[in-house]
């Protein structure tokens, strides 16, 4: 099938000469101009010599292979890291706030455990403060998804992502994780230095350090997914901020932000045990101060399970949200 000459193309332009335009056009735009069933859009059909002079053509076409998809999302993470680093100065307020919190809690725990009072379920002042280092480092690193998605939905900017070859939820998950990474490292550094100065070092088993990496990564992933779920409510409500407010308070209490869940009454510990919040804050922080292989294994399983649940919920909400855009306009 010969592709018709583009009407606006000036004649005789050598770089538009249809050497490879001839034949093999299975892209659906032939002389027939039919609305026939979709053709096989093979590489041939998608590639004619249309370039600025000297502009190389795209051959081969995208593969959609697992490796290519992995590279795509890794690139999103890397871009998000750079994006966050570009204005890391804006985040410096958080470490200062963090150091202040640690100072206050250091004094608090030192008072609570003064006069040689016995540790509570294995936590003395030192363990309690180092626990707080980890929970706060995770909490303060969470990107503010609500404002971003809210704005995308309200301004219609969601369209600029929807017509890109990546999944909307996958993009935001990767971008948020990338943004969280440098802030987490900064917070952790500030926390470690401050805690060492205030209360001294904490002996940590090498296995605990190894376990912390996946534990924190999974905790961040779950935190971002829950954040995405709430942010996607912007498709239906004018302001999703109240939902975030409630979530944060739940995270503070049932996630064990300030104190380990071990300090809570038994019935509340049981309730918290069945909720995802503890796997975001308490779980990883507990590994730091009271590591055990069994706890680590259990934590990873719970984190994976909650990630699966919230991934499904997030994707379902996203599709429902897109249908909302479909029926109510962008």
């Amino acid at each position: 099938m010969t592709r018709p000459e583009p009407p606006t193309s000036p004649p005789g332009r050598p770089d538009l000469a249809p050497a490879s335009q001839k034949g093999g056009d299975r892209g659906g735009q032939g002389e027939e101009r039919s609305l026939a069933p979709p053709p096989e859009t093979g590489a041939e059909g998608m590639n004619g010599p249309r370039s600025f002079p000297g502009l190389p053509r795209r051959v081969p076409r995208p593969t959609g292979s697992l490796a290519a998809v992995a590279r795509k999302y890794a690139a999103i993470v890397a871009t998000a890291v750079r994006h966050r680093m570009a204005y890391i100065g804006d985040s410096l307020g958080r470490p200062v706030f963090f150091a202040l919190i640690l100072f206050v809690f250091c004094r608090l725990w030192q008072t609570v455990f003064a006069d040689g009072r016995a540790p509570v379920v294995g936590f003395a002042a030192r363990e309690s403060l180092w626990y707080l280092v980890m929970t706060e480092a995770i909490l303060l690193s969470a990107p503010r998804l609500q404002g971003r998605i809210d704005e995308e939905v309200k301004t219609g900017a969601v369209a600029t992502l929807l017509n890109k070859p990546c999944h909307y939820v996958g993009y935001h998950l990767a971008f948020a994780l990338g943004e969280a990474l440098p802030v987490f490292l900064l917070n952790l550094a500030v926390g470690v230095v401050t805690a060492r100065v205030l209360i001294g070092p904490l002996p940590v088993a090498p296995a605990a350090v190894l376990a912390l990496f996946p534990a924190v990564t999974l905790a961040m992933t779950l935190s971002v997914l829950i954040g995405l779920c709430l942010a996607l409510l912007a498709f239906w409500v004018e302001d999703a901020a109240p939902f975030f407010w409630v979530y944060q308070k739940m995270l503070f209490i049932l996630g064990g932000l300030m104190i380990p869940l071990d300090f809570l009454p038994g019935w509340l510990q049981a309730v918290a045990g069945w909720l995802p919040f503890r796997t975001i804050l308490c779980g990883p922080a507990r590994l730091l101060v009271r590591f055990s292989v069994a706890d680590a294994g259990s934590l990873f399983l719970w984190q994976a399970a909650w990630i699966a649940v919230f991934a499904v919920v997030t994707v379902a909400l996203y599709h429902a949200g897109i249908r909302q855009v479909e029926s109510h306009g962008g």
Partner: protein
Amino acid sequence: MIEVEGLGKDFLVPEKEPGVWGSLRALVAPRHRPVTAVADVTFTVAPGELLAFIGPNGAGKSTTIKMLTGILHPSRGRARVLGFVPWEDRQQLSFHIGSVFGQRSQLWLHLPPLDSFNLLARMYELPDDLYRQRLDRLVAVFELGDLLAVPVRKLSLGQRMRCEIAAALLHDPRVLFLDEPTIGLDVIAKEAVRDLILRANRDAGVTIFLTSHDAGDIEKLCRRVIIIDHGQVLLDADVQSLRRSPHFSIRTVGARLSRPADGFACDGVEILKRKGPGLKLRVDTAATPIDHVLQALQAYARIEDITVRTPSLDQIIAHIYRQKGLPASAPAEPAEEDE
């Protein structure tokens, strides 16, 4: 390349009464009013065309683009872009189309354009060597060398738009959807962006689907224009034929004569202004040939200077809008052109 048949889209727009009671009612029993954004649109776009798709605000331009890029499902009708059904094959189609939304950036504001280009290359799965070659060429053509390391938020609107179009061309799309690409640009930046659009079309053979409120974009870039309103095609015409259409046979004649023009009169001519030897006339050339007017002027006095003006494209479009009962102020006002 693009085939659209009876495409339509209806939305349900929420309605809320004012006040607290209205808010409560909307919460408990939300009410929606159906609104037709696009009623029934049919057209085709051939490979290599540079088409202007224009209409007043709310005419359905953006909704049509969103359907053609797969962002929205239509309520009715059919469409194919490059053989793909956009809303069913959005991901696959996205590898072969590009889009630029004049009021929404696809670049990462806090990062230099190069970072955005690198990420887009990964998103579109461009092989590294091909990406490098294409980037080098686009940087040369779009003169982006000095901009690559500057954060996007620090770029002027014109510079940003050059980067946006380069980003949209990076993955070698066959069709480029441009939604008001020159909005807010100054005259120089507009010219630069128009030149790049033209080069993308003529030199790279990219089919371009352009929406704009700027008649200059249409006049300088497009051979064909589709005017829509209320989601219906009002006019699908060649830009030149539009300009020369018998419906737009009005000419404005300005003349400076050798003596006061007080006594000048001519059948079929409306005198718009008369001041000393100066005269401004409105002539419908379909009814009164222009040479008849010239003869009458010469018979009255010696002509020292004369201009004959055709309606600008903007005025033509405004005239079409008025004929259809639309707000005529939709297009911007360009300078008139001498014939």
